[in-house]
């Protein structure tokens, strides 16, 4: 027999109190597991949605002379007499960075001024199909261009030219067919004529060059790493992260996590107090028993150790119950609240955090009772004073 056997025996004897302590710890653990699971799933879902909201990174030629603007990012050199371009290999290099798996889309963009009926418009040559996949806010009336002789009009251009799908338009003296137009986006697309990259290259004679590459990361968390890697792979380019969506994502995630963790912290504090008060009551009830232990030669540290062993056993119980209940709740809550449209997947880190919390709460809450028990005067405990 050793102290562990005595502690376990004591817990068996006081099943009610032990169950209360286990319950207190389990509530704290379940709350943490539930909140962390939901926050992480919400973050993943939001990340996914925001990632699809557009590019996170724009790769442009490295130049300080900027004038043309698109997507909130200026394209270097226009109006200065010389427009710098990205090298031919830039697109391939972007797609070949070490974290290429984190790249959802890399869309090449060539921006060139074109003439229609003597008026100047900005034309964008790109992979129109991929671009429309990434830019979920595009609402195309008609269809996107698939052949070199086809174009898509921004809302403002369509209004200015009065062209509907199926009509022909002469751009820089060459005929094109309008396949569709974009509903008003409120962004630069409204002023663009969009056509396949090869078509604009042929039309303007700017072949094998790009003004920029729009990169969409698989998650906002990958943006910083991709920025570094693309900067290293394409040294003559400037890589700019589209901060707004990243910051919005981070801010939303932080607020959500903060709220959830504040609630959890409150639950943890209340649970810790319940555990501590229950253990203090138990210690008081066992006063005489502790007196006997001291009388037969147990030192203060032996008594403290006994209480802490009991707390450890109860913490383990609380961890098991809490992780199971919290995980079950994390799966049930999204089913009950369908508007969340969440998919919760088991996360080992959440379980580790839950188990760690159980022991932190259990042992911290037991420290004071353990000290009280250890400091108990054996003579007083045995009513000898």
């Amino acid at each position, binding site marked *: *027999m*050793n*102290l562990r*056997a*005595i502690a376990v*025996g*004591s817990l*068996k*004897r006081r099943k009610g109190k032990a169950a209360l302590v286990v319950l207190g710890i389990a509530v704290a653990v379940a709350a943490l597991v539930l909140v962390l699971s939901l926050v992480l799933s919400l973050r993943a879902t939001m990340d996914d949605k925001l990632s699809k909201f557009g590019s996170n990174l724009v790769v442009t030629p490295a130049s300080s002379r900027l004038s043309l603007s698109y997507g909130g990012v200026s394209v270097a050199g226009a109006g200065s007499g010389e427009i710098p371009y990205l090298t031919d290999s830039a697109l391939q290099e972007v797609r070949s960075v070490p974290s290429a798996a984190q790249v959802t889309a890399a869309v090449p963009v060539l921006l060139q001024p074109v003439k229609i009926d003597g008026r100047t418009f900005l034309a964008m040559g790109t992979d129109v199909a991929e671009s429309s996949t990434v830019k979920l806010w595009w609402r195309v009336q008609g269809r996107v261009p698939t052949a070199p002789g086809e174009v898509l009009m921004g809302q403002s251009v369509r209004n200015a030219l009065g062209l509907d799908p199926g009509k022909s338009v002469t751009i820089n003296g060459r005929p094109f067919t309008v396949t569709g137009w974009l509903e008003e986006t409120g962004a630069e697309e409204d002023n663009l004529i969009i056509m396949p990259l090869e078509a604009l290259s042929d039309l303007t004679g700017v072949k094998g060059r790009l003004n920029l590459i729009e990169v969409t990361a698989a998650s906002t968390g990958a943006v910083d790493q991709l920025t570094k890697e693309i900067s290293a792979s394409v040294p003559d380019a400037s890589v700019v992260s589209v901060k707004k969506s990243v910051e919005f994502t981070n801010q939303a995630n932080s607020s959500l996590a903060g709220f959830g963790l504040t609630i959890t912290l409150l639950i943890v504090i209340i649970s810790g107090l319940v555990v501590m008060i229950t253990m203090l009551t138990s210690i008081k009830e066992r006063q*005489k*028993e502790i*007196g*006997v*232990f*001291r*009388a*037969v*030669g*147990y*030192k*203060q540290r*032996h008594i403290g150790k006994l209480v802490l062993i009991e707390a450890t056993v109860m913490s383990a119980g609380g961890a098991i119950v809490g992780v199971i209940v919290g995980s079950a709740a994390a799966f049930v809550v999204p089913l009950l609240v369908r508007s969340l449209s969440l998919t919760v997947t088991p996360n080992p880190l959440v379980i580790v955090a839950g188990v760690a919390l159980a022991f932190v709460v259990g042992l911290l809450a037991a420290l004071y009772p353990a000290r009280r028990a250890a400091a108990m*005067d*054996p*003579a007083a405990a*045995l009513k*000898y*004073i």
Partner: protein
Amino acid sequence: MAIVRVDEVSRHYGEGDARVVALDRVSLDIERGDYTAIMGPSGSGKTTLLSILGSMNPPTDGRLLVDDIDVYALSQERQADLRREYIGFVFQQLELIPYLSALENVMLPLAILKESGKRERALDALCRVGLDERKARRLPSELSGGEQGRVAIARAVVNNPPIVLADEPVGSLDQTTGRQILTLLRELADGGHAVIMVTHNPESTAEVDRVIQIRDGRITCDERPEICTLPEEEGEALPVGGVAG
């Protein structure tokens, strides 16, 4: 050399007007093999003396020497060691741990030791008080009062301490069981233990070698039992015999 020497020990509780003198300059020696009863009316100081002898209640003045060791000059930790090595307790209500079996109760003083053979020693102690292995597996609640008393005595002697302190060991037992326990204590003394028993019942002193009577914190008699007895619980007549301090 006396295994226990109480040297001018006083114990006060409270301060000022609330000051109570529980023991007043008490001195005595106890040898190995002595079977001693400490008697006195309620509030006389006998339980205080027992707790001081048990290294659990430091005196206000004076010294307790156990095997020539000044007990209360030791640290709390060393006092705990000394209790384990030198002193076995038999408590008034026996105070067996209800969730531990008889064997585990006897092993209690050994549980904190890192040594082998603890179970065998506990079984041997139980055997010495007449309990077999079958009884050893039972919880205290599954044993008779007498058997519980035997377990309490086995726990007190499992470490083979030179001193056994018993606080009203038969107070809660029926007459037959009480007699068995007193006989067991006598056997312990015959085996070389210094057995010190607190009692207020003169009948419990039938087998003791020596009675120490205490009144108002002072030893009023320290003699053989037939000489040094209280006529009644709150007895008035002082016995014939040595009167200390």
